[in-house]
């Protein structure tokens, strides 16, 4: 990293207040979205930090009256895509082809504390692991459609693709999830 210089202009009060409010209101949601995408705490932290830096830089381009969360999710999506491209070699091993379930062995997300660990184990371990086996695009579309409950149109805008692509990714992802969960449940019995 090069020498750090001070910005030409000190940040305006509005810009600082904008970031402060954004972190306060949407920091947790953004971090959770990043965590669900990356399934890794360190990457989620980096992604969240980079996203809020973008928010700070581009605060004037946010259109008042529109959804801030959609805006920052789009930023996170783009950053995540860039990161995947940058680390292509490393991530390629983890990304299964569409409709091609891989052998189980995905990295288990870190539990915050023993209670979380217990809940993970009791409630949704097979699904959680299966979600981790989807491709990043499939995982993202499932997160946005089923967890965040966005419409196909909104997902298309966030992911920068067509509604048809959202639809087909979601269909494939759910079919794959279903098979993976069933397989894991049958193995557990």
């Amino acid at each position: 990293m090069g020498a750090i210089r001070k910005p030409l202009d000190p940040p305006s009060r509005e810009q600082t207040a904008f970031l402060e409010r954004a972190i306060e209101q949407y920091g947790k949601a953004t971090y959770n979205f990043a965590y669900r995408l990356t399934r890794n705490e360190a990457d989620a932290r980096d992604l969240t930090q980079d996203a809020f830096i973008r928010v700070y830089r581009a605060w004037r381009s946010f259109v008042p009256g529109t959804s801030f969360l959609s805006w920052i999710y789009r930023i996170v999506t783009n950053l995540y895509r860039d990161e995947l491209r940058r680390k292509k070699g490393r991530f390629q091993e983890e990304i299964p082809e569409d409709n091609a379930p891989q052998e189980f062995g995905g990295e288990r997300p870190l539990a915050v504390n023993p209670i979380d660990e217990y809940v993970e184990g009791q409630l949704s371990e097979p699904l959680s692991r299966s979600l981790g086996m989807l491709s990043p695009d499939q995982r993202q579309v499932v997160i946005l459609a089923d967890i965040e409950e966005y419409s196909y149109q909104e997902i298309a805008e966030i992911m920068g693709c067509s509604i048809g692509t959202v639809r087909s990714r979601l269909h494939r992802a759910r079919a794959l999830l279903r098979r993976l969960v069933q397989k894991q449940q049958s193995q557990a019995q």
Partner: protein
Amino acid sequence: MQHPTTERLIDYIHAALAPQDDAAVHMHLDECSECRQEHAVQIRLSEMLRADAAAHERELPPMLKAQIWNAVRSLEPTAMDRVRAWLRPAYSVPVAAALIVAAFVAPGYLHHNASGAPSIDAAYYLQDHAAMNGATPFGDHSGSAAAQFEETSNVDQTVLHAVPVVGMARVSR
């Protein structure tokens, strides 16, 4: 109505069907237990995903907020920041004022210095005049054209070059 496909049911539970298709699937589910079962499986999958997300929900790490602010404070200015800095009133107002003044002054200045009429070098007329005198034996100036040209050439050429001489040819002849 024939049985909706699984894909159609997925679109149905995500409210992504056109109103008439949505109504048709809705009516079909009322009548068909087989499709109701598939619909229930899809609903259950969505519920499990939400439960999984809730179980894994995390708080924003306390250090992360501080890290974001530290990163923001050490940002380098982008090209856009530099442009924006030049557009600040402290710079932009004097520059705009200078441009406005220039816009008023420049046309008058250009009008005086570039009338648009074709100009001809004054030396040409002097040479032409001398040649005419030399060629007219009974003219007022009986000296040789060459001598007269020499005489007139001693006039400060820079002054002559600067004088617009449009129309002089007719007068001198």
